[in-house]
């Protein structure tokens, strides 16, 4: 993977802008029964992010799965202050669309490059959802600077 800044373009799901450290998973995420909304922690038994919190991170993932409680659980994270700062995902579903809307965090999908192949956990990510632009600074480049 190359270092330096990489730019992706996507479609706005929810507007706004944010930046932060990426938390990346190649596995879809369950809301209800998969996330503890008091801490923003993934709790699904076999999930590769089990025990990690997305609070204040830029959450990069394929999409949502599981219970229809997805939106309500992510909605709760807004109330408890444990939401991610932004969401970047590939697979549009009603669960994730509604969850992004009620969580009110900048969100993008339909990218020109797969964010899962570009962004790694620890990269610094700037999201401008209104313009549909994502700027990624690789962790390696961050350490060098």
């Amino acid at each position, binding site marked *: 993977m190359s270092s330096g800044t990489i730019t992706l373009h996507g479609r706005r799901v929810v507007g706004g802008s944010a930046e932060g450290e990426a938390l990346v998973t190649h596995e879809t995420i369950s809301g209800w029964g*998969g996330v503890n909304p008091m801490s923003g922690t993934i*709790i699904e038994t076999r999930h590769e992010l089990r025990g990690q919190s997305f609070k204040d991170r830029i959450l990069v993932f*394929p*999409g949502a799965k599981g219970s229809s409680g997805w939106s309500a659980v992510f909605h709760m994270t807004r109330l408890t202050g444990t939401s991610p700062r932004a969401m970047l995902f590939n697979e549009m*579903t*009603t669960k994730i669309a509604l969850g*992004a809307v*009620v969580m009110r965090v900048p969100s993008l999908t339909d990218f020109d490059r797969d964010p899962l192949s570009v962004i790694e956990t620890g990269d610094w990510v700037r999201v401008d959802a209104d313009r549909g632009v994502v700027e990624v600074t690789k962790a390696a480049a961050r350490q060098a600077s």
Partner: protein
Amino acid sequence: MKLTDADRAMLDGQEGKARQKAMELLVRYAEALGAEGFVDTNNVAGVPGSYSPLLLNYYQATAENAYDIVYSRFDLDSDEVVQVPRVNVHSCHLQGGIDPENWQTLGAKPESLQMSLDSENAAAGHGIRILKTCTPYLAGNIPVPGEHCAWMESSAVVYCNSVLGARTNTEGRESTSAAMLTGRIPDWGFHRDEFRHASHHIRVEVPVADLMDWGMLGYFVGAAVGERIPVLTGRFGAPELVHHKHFGAAAASSGGVEMYHLVGVTPEAPTLQAALGPNSRPEIIPYGAEQRRRTYEELNSRASDRAVDYVMLGCPHAALEQIEEICRLLAGRKIHPDCQLWIFTSRAVRAVADARGHTRIIRESGGALITDTCSAIAQAIPPGTRVVALDSAKQTHYLPAIMGIQAWFGSTRDCIEAALTGRWNGVLR
């Protein structure tokens, strides 16, 4: 977006503040999806206005004003509290709250029961039918083919689309509460013909006949296809209602399956080609003895201790025939003193079970037939539970993660044996 005059009137506030807020949320949601407009719906299933101590505390609400406050701020995601009118489409309340008859068994406090009853009464007073079940299709809400619905509850959604041939996306709490006031839901996904075709082909190479088999197959399929639509061919007989119920629930838990096709069985799959539609023939995913064994092992990877202290049945909520089978398997015996047996169902099914003496048989064996909720939803298990036995792949997926306990998965017979002996002796037959 293409909005009708009626949509615009609601957005402009001509139908009152609550419908305006509901329409604003639906427009934000439709834009997020990339939908171009809405369809009419007259069949909505959700959890409108229901609340927990956390929500009441967060919104500084009291029992008197909680419905309006929670419905406005959480359900409609409105920063302003509005007066919420009666619903104007057929609307039902899915599972939630506390069984008013078995609240002590569930370990609920009197104040929690009161909160559940207050929430229920407020919803009922606004025209919402209190079904209190994840299986509305077993409790009087059976959509007709082609009907546009707005349902929550992933196991009910997959049943609605696949078995009944009605049309719903997996809606959430906020979208269903908004749809109850507006009769509108985004015209996207499963409401559209082109979205309902299969993209993945599963070939079933081992016989699939009983409830446990169908649950395992569903769990395999969900993991194999994720959020996509599978079509299945091969060695399955004619599934009964409860087989669909457990298959779909499992596929919607290990993955995000909202619709499946069984060739020759489900209404939109008279042939493989009809199920696939314009999609090209996908690669075949086999489900043979090896895949079956690995699925069983995966489901049983969450336990090591064979001393079982809790058996939970009824996920999704038990049908009458399942309750009859449980009574048959109990055969008048007492469950083990170190084990509890809780069976969850809808109020509608329990009313029949009460009348037919099943509830009494279960009680006399030392078990309980409980409505409204389940261990995962209520986060209620018998005190001191370390190891649970389950006949539901869906519940096996969720309960250990939510409650931090071990879970065995097997047949209903394996589970009843565990309840009677306090030991897990389930095997893959």
